[in-house]
């Protein structure tokens, strides 16, 4: 038999029909929705006079524009409130499970899916949100879709998709202390650019990837979209199975052990052909930071900003515009540069391990006076665990305040905005112009690097603060 990639196996198993010279009709096992990209899709169903086809396969949460303080009160902003109420109403009308505001399981869609046992190996998963790629950490084909496609899934549990090409990125070897999975993915994107993965679905492999926890793997897959890729996945292994075994419930599986047998076989065959293969050495990766306005503009924290976007070429107008927005110049070093804000949270780094890492570094230190910190757990469960593990206490002793869960300053749809011109070291995934508020200047980094900035008030190599 022909050697197949894991991606091919899952994809081919979900094709309901192939259209000649056209897309495949792909069956979707799990559909996540949130308030921002779903209302128009439900309107569409209403106009067609139809109901949701398989409501039990869709899971809903409110996360993008909810406040992170006083969640028990009504949402102040009228449009946001209306949007969240609309989602709640739509879910009730169509019989969809909804983890709304104040529900004990509420949180960012890509955090709650895995932690509540809805994301399982071998699935096809979509959501009207580009970071759906996060779920690939479990060995799923998971990708973001637009609202028209959300409507397709609600109406028929299928979408039409051309099959992407396949890429494998292997990272081998051992990571240095202080270097995290966030650094791995920022490093890869800085090497292949923010568009280098466009048209591809990526499988991450290699010993450095295999050594990572599920949470760290989610960070990597989460940001695969930031290199333009349709998504990224990692073959399930013992780490995956241990994670699943610890969950209190796994949805949609009648016999867990039998399912486990199937999941154990899920990997790319020996000799399977990828359209592109890239190999990196973990030892080359240092703590990373971005200096520009797309996630491809990243460098080792102690390096100097490159002279141009493509090696050896003249800096393009877009490159210079980006640096001007950030208030930086080519060849400048960022170590020691003052930082105004620190944001720790988002579907990239808003899981319990991220908050543990942050706590490890700030324990016994004090927040720098010049820094405003936004500490936002990814979900209610994460928030609860932070309390139980005593992390909240460590944070408070160091002068930090922990907020309530939500997307928050990752996209600044609520009031958690970074003011114009201010510098924010952020554990989120996008440093686009204005992403964290009009005029905000975002530097993407790991939770450790964010912690180092939070206690020193400057861009600091976290390795110098780790004992």
């Amino acid at each position, binding site marked *: 038999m022909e050697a197949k990639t894991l991606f091919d196996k899952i994809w081919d198993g979900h094709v309901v029909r192939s259209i000649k010279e*056209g*897309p495949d*009709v792909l069956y979707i096992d799990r559909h996540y929705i949130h308030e921002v990209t779903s209302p128009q899709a439900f309107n569409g169903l209403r106009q067609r006079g*139809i109901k949701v086809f398989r409501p039990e396969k869709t899971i809903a949460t409110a996360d993008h524009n909810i406040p992170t303080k006083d969640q028990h009160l009504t949402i102040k902003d009228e449009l946001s409130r209306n949007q969240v109420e609309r989602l709640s109403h739509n879910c009730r009308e169509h019989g969809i499970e909804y983890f709304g505001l104040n529900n004990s399981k509420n949180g960012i869609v890509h955090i709650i899916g895995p932690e509540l046992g809805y994301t399982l190996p071998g699935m096809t998963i979509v959501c009207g949100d580009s970071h759906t790629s996060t779920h690939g950490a479990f060995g799923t084909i998971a990708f973001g*879709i637009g609202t028209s496609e959300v409507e397709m899934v609600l109406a028929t*549990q299928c979408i039409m998709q051309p099959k992407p090409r396949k890429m494998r990125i292997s990272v081998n070897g051992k990571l240095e202390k202080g270097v995290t999975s966030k650094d791995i993915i920022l490093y890869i994107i800085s090497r292949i650019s923010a568009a280098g993965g466009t048209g591809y679905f990526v499988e991450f492999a290699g010993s450095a990837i295999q050594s990572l926890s599920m949470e760290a793997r989610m960070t990597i897959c989460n940001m695969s979209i930031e290199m333009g890729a349709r998504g990224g996945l990692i073959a399930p292994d013992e780490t995956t199975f241990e994670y699943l075994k610890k969950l209190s419930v796994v949805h949609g599986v009648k016999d867990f052990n039998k399912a486990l047998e199937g999941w154990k076989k899920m990997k790319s065959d020996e000799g399977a052909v990828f359209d592109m293969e890239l190999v990196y050495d973990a030892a080359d990766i240092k703590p990373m930071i971005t200096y520009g306005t797309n996630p491809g503009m990243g460098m080792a924290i102690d390096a100097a900003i490159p002279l141009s976007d493509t090696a050896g070429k003249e800096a393009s107008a877009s490159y210079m515009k980006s640096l001007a927005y950030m208030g930086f110049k080519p060849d400048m070093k960022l170590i020691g540069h003052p930082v105004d804000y620190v944001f720790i949270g988002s579907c990239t780094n808003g899981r319990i391990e991220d908050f543990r890492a942050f706590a490890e570094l700030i324990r016994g230190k004090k927040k720098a006076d010049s820094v405003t910190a936004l500490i936002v757990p990814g979900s209610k469960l994460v928030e609860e665990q932070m309390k139980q593990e005593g992390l909240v206490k460590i944070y408070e002793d160091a002068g930090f305040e922990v907020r309530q869960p939500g997307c928050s300053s990752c996209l600044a749809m609520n009031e958690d905005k970074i003011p114009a011109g201010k510098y924010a070291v952020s554990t989120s995934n996008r440093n686009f112009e*204005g992403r964290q508020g009009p005029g905000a200047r975002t530097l993407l980094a790991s939770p450790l690097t964010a912690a180092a900035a939070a206690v020193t008030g400057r861009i600091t190599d976290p390795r110098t603060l780790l004992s």
Partner: protein
Amino acid sequence: MPKTKFNILETTCVPLPLENVDTDQIIPARFLSATSREGFGDNLFRDWRYLKTGEKNPEFVLNSPVYSGKVLVAGKNFGSGSSREHAVWAIYDYGFRAVVSSFFADIFKNNSLNNGLLPIVISEELLQKLQSQVKQDPSTKVRIDLEKQEFSVLPTGDTARFEINAYKKECLLKGLDDIDFLIAMKDQITDYENNKIMVK
């Protein structure tokens, strides 16, 4: 629901020669709270189009009296970032019917095709040439022939073939809608569920 049909378009164009224009620039997140598809055009490129004072930024191309037309000539890697279809709604609502670039982000391309906005990929070389041509002469017209998959710059005679998958082309030409297509194959979907599905 059938959509507007697309076939031949002859129009002047608006140049936006920037690379990596992401969906947060096309429509900033703070304008995504609406629950209908209409009206997003007013906030297209909001933070470039308006100054901090709320006045129009005279430097930004959409505010220039010189350029107009139904085709946006963008730079490389247009539409990266979020999956928000609002970006496409904003471009369409503003009055554009096609975007030309040398490279589009995947989700943006799909979203465009699902809304009758044609993403046209041409070579970087032709794109550069077109940008300078439009700058020099804002009355430059381009012609898009979807049936023939041809994009031409009329005054210079440059013509390039663009790719589009046959199914999507048919949908655009006839104004057909994917959802109608999928709804019509419900029996086949149910069959799939009964026979092949792994996770119920």
